[in-house]
């Protein structure tokens, strides 16, 4: 009894002990979890400590979903922090078949990242995915396909292609979309799959759901960008679908259709109709244009730009102005978008500034704009200068020249100079604005103004326009003004510029009244004197110009004692300068002066101990000759380019935005227009014209026919119907659409007449034709199936928006 009682006692004891332990544990775990609740579920994972990392393996092996999730989240957090966690691969892969969707998703994220490094282990998961491809849930099917195709293990290439093929015929458009993207991945993994991928793409192209067609367009671009023959039948349907496709799909589809149109349709142009010029636009091109026009109303900027690209690169000139307000609308969306759209607008406006002139106020610069935006807006404003708006714009430029950003200030001053050149009427206003800067502006404004004035003065003098300008703004007055301010101008290039101007335009005709030294404008010697004083502290570029100035002045007044002394001073300093260019220049100019001023030569020479003074041999130039050397033959000042963007910038390319060439170069460049568009019956849907291969051949011969028949093979204006061949075959088609033999007969006849060139082509043609024929039969075979399946999707948004 006692023993029993003891036992019981023991039992009770152990029970209470266990119970209390259990209670403590529950409490513990509960408090831990509530702590989780308080601080949010995942921050703990993100700051995982080493302890936690050690536990990952245990968690992944555990039976509880919660712990597995815990382990996986810690792993993902580590990936986020840039740590390599591939060591856990085997433990993760075990969970790939978990019933918990969240676990599976996290496993997928991990798998996709590390499958490449562990191909053998990755193979373990393949079965699960293949099974998932038959799941009733389209989400699981598409996820399985995405992961399967994303595991970059070439060994399973064939399995993946099979799975893609299966999914391409799925009932859910979401799965078909995943299939289209998987086609790209298969191709990137191993390009040798191409032959089996193209039929998949062909069947996907027939998709009537706007959900998946964008992905198909992407796949087409990536896998077989030049197989336009596959698109003929679908072109018109794709155009009409455009408006219902999602934004990303619209961008891809527009790009594909644009490339198709540029390769297959005839270039829009002008035709003479009843004495009046009118636009000629291929009806199929017009279809694309009118299907793109509503997309200008999209909220997605990439779609708006894609549509603008269509109108800019494919539309006739008369329809180009339609892109103006959609593009301007994008400017106010966000800083990033504004920056990008501005650089595109530069390309557009360079081509057709007129359309944008009324909207110049959209480009006024704000002080809070970023430097790039300021620069681009200014470039655009300069391009939009016109006789009507130059006064408003000039006022703007003057404001910009007071900005705190020095580079922008100098751009603004250049813009004023540009204004003076482009619109002659504005020259007086521009000059007074520039002179105002020199009097009161900031350092940056002063130096740029000098540079701009130099160009203006030079052009003025050379074009002999000085008569047109008013007295206060005559070029010589400007030079005089500049000369007076040499002390205030700090920028070396600007100083050099003034000194050059002074030297170049210092001569005064003898018959004019002049208070200074005869033959020299009164301000010139003073510049020489003032800069000579600071010679040693000047930059080389200023020293060089000062030597030239000294020479020129001496040339104009060879006997003036003070000038000789000044020149001698300058030349002596220059001769022993640190900079060898300055030394060389001084020596050269000194030699030139040999025949000009006896006195200068003597004094100059006497200082030069090392060289012989009088007879150095060679040719000594007379004063008139030296004048010719120094003063004449100046080139017209080069037109300053404000816009630096390349002329070939492509709308919608990264290249146009960053200004740097991208590795792939011009992948966004559209192909050139064909000499002659292909026959439009090519694009008739197959239901209407079963004998498709024949028509394609016929249209090609039309092309040849016109090129051999007409003298200009590259005729850019497509003709509506006057081509005899064209009409001939068209007639043929309508009457004998189902008798291809007769068409063949005509072809043979034609080739007999044709030159040798076309015979080579003929071989290619027939080969292609065979391909097309086989493709065609398949298409016909599969037609029934595709029709049946697409019925499900007819309730889609396509029908909604009718």
């Amino acid at each position: 009894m006692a023993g029993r009682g003891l036992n019981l006692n023991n039992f009770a004891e152990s029970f209470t002990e266990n119970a209390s332990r259990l209670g403590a544990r529950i409490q513990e775990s509960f408090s831990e979890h509530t702590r989780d609740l308080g601080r949010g579920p995942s921050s703990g994972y993100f700051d995982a400590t080493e302890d936690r990392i050690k536990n990952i393996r245990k968690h992944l092996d555990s039976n509880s979903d919660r712990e597995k999730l815990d382990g996986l989240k810690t792993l993902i957090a580590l990936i986020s922090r840039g740590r390599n966690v591939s060591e856990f691969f085997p433990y993760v892969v075990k969970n790939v078949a978990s019933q918990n969707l969240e676990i599976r998703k996290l496993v997928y994220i991990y798998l996709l990242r590390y499958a490449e490094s562990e191909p053998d282990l990755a193979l373990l998961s393949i079965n699960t995915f293949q099974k998932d491809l038959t799941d009733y849930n389209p989400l699981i099917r598409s996820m399985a396909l995405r992961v399967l195709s994303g595991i970059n293990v070439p060994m399973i290439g064939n399995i993946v292609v099979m799975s893609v093929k299966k999914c391409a015929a799925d009932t859910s458009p979401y799965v078909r979309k995943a299939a289209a993207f998987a086609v790209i991945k298969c191709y990137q993994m191993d390009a040798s799959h191409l032959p089996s991928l193209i039929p998949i793409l062909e069947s996907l192209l027939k998709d009537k759901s706007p959900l998946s067609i964008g992905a198909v367009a992407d796949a087409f671009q990536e896998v077989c960008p030049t197989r336009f023959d596959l698109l003929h039948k679908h072109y018109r349907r794709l155009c009409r679908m455009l408006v219902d496709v999602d934004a990303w799909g619209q961008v891809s589809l527009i790009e594909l259709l644009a490339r198709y149109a540029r390769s297959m349709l005839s270039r829009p142009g002008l035709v003479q109709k009843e004495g009046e010029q009118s636009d000629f636009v291929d009806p199929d091109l017009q279809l694309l244009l009118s299907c793109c026009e509503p997309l200008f109303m999209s909220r997605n900027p990439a779609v708006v730009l894609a549509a603008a690209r269509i109108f800019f690169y494919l539309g006739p000139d008369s329809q180009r102005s339609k892109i103006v307000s959609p593009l301007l609308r994008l400017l106010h969306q966000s800083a990033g978008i504004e920056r990008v759209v501005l650089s595109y607008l530069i390309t557009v406006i360079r081509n057709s500034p007129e359309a944008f002139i009324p909207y110049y106020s959209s480009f006024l610069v704000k002080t809070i704009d970023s430097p790039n935006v300021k620069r681009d807006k200014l470039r655009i404003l300069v391009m939009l200068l016109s006789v009507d708006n130059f006064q408003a714009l000039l006022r703007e430029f003057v404001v910009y020249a007071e900005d705190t950003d020095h580079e922008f200030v100098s751009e603004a001053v250049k813009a004023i100079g540009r204004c003076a050149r482009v619109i002659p009427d504005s020259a007086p206003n521009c000059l007074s604005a520039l002179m105002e800067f020199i009097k009161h502006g900031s350092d940056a404004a002063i130096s740029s103004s000098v540079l701009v004035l130099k160009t203006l003065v030079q052009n003025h003098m050379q074009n002999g326009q000085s008569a047109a300008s008013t007295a206060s703004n005559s070029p010589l007055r400007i030079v005089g003004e500049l000369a007076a301010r040499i002390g205030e101008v700090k920028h070396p290039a600007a100083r050099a510029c003034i000194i050059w101007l002074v030297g170049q335009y210092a001569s005064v005709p003898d018959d004019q009244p002049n208070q200074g030294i005869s033959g020299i404008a009164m301000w010139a010697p003073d510049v020489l004197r003032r800069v000579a004083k600071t010679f040693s502290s000047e930059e080389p570029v200023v020293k060089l110009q000062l030597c030239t100035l000294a020479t020129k002045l001496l040339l104009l007044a060879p006997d003036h004692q003070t000038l000789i002394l000044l020149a001698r001073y300058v030349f002596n300093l220059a001769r022993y300068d640190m900079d060898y260019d300055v030394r060389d220049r001084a020596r050269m100019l000194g030699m030139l002066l040999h025949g000009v001023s006896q006195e200068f030569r003597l004094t100059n020479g006497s200082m030069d101990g090392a060289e012989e003074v009088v007879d150095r041999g060679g040719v000594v130039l007379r004063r008139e000759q030296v004048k010719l050397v120094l003063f004449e033959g100046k080139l017209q000042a080069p037109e300053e380019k404000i816009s630096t963007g390349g002329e070939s910038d492509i709308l919608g390319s990264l290249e146009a935005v960053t200004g740097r060439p991208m590795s792939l170069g011009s992948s966004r460049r559209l192909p050139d227009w064909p000499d002659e568009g292909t026959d439009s019956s090519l694009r008739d849907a197959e239901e209407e014209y079963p004998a498709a291969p024949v028509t394609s051949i016929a249209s090609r011969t039309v092309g040849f026919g016109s090129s051999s028949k007409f003298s200009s093979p590259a005729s850019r204006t497509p003709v509506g119907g006057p081509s005899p061949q064209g009409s001939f075959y068209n007639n043929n088609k309508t009457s004998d659409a189902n008798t291809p033999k007769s068409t063949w007969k005509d072809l043979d006849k034609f080739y007999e007449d044709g030159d040798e060139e076309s015979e080579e082509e003929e071989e290619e043609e027939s080969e292609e034709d065979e391909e097309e024929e086989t493709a065609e039969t398949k298409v016909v075979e599969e037609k029934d199936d595709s029709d049946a399946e697409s019925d499900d999707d007819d309730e889609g948004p396509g029908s909604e928006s009718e």
Partner: protein
Amino acid sequence: MVIDGIIILEASGRPIVQTNFRSKGPAYPLLHIDAFNNALSETQYANLDPVLSVAAHHGPSACCHMECGGLRFLCPVSGDVDPLFAFSFLQTLVEVLHDYVNDISPTSLRDHFDVVYQLLEEMLDNGHPLTTERNTLRDIVLPPSLWSKVLAVAGAPDFSKTSANPFASPLPWRKLGVKYANNEIYFDINESMTAIVNKNGTVLSSQVWGEIDTNCHLSGMPDLLLTFRDTKSLQDCSFHPCVRLQKWSKDKMLSFVPPDGSFVLMEFRYSPVVSGVVSAPRPIPLPFTLTPSITLSENGGVIDLTLTSRLSARVIERIVVELVLGRGVTGASCTVSSGATWGFDPKARRLRWEIQKAPQGASYSLRGTFSATEKPSPARAFQISFDISQNTFSGLKVDQLRVQNEGYKPYKGVRGKSIGDVEWRW
């Protein structure tokens, strides 16, 4: 078109999320993070080029970036991709995240980084945007909610799992089987004005852009027809994909099956019609005038501002006038009229004058001096922002909302609000 991936950085430059760089190798995202942080170390974010060139060993690439909630969203692109594509994807991502975590901040994203990863996995397939409609995403990625947290704590299996029937809706932007006890729909007409005014007070350019934010709680598959009282002054309109464009082009009516929840229904530019002619943008008058006078001296300057409301019926709220005083400015001391406050931010050297409420016709002034160690060169313009609640510049009115397809009559609410940003040169 393909983007290379998404990186989300904290303000300190540390990545929170980086994903989808499978084809590029592990160094690629690091290069972009480095390039971005280096560029940022040289200048302020506002002055940073939104498209940075980055040299990677695959060849040149670029990093498009934007800021939201103290986070930087980076989107590297390589090859000749339109950066607008990257920017619109970033914009979409931010909208989706906003839907999932309410306010986007470093803390909220760190708390829910696993959700962000799951979202990005669904939104991007190898760089191609996949599923970006919020209504579809909600079916396949569970938003973090208090309820699921509680369930997780209780250790119970989570029954609020993703919809059993994803991808079932024929409209990607609307879920199937939405049910509300109260059917209601709210339209917020938000308009924002941007303007530039030159020295003598002439308005050089002013534009008003409007946006109709909609919050829709309607059951089933309602087909709505929304008409406005006057649509002539609405220009450059753009719409949510749900809107039938043809109907708008023909009848100027909005016909649509709305997404569930909040979305932007349309955007427009308000352009007043002058005798039936719609021409180039015409300046729209500002609701106030500012008379600035600044005198600069060697060691500072005197500033005298007067701001007068030009509205006759409405109150302008939260008028903030700011001026960067420029290098060398050490301090300022001002007196302002009652109802206003002023401040000087010594770090940004910015003078700030704030008026809480300016009733019709009221006039306010600020007088003061500022001191500097050198001759100051203040920014050439004042930046002024303001709000006018319960009012729009356009005066756009909803005329009628008809519901087809469903039997109920929803409660509808319409609200207007205006904000403005003006650059006023002096």
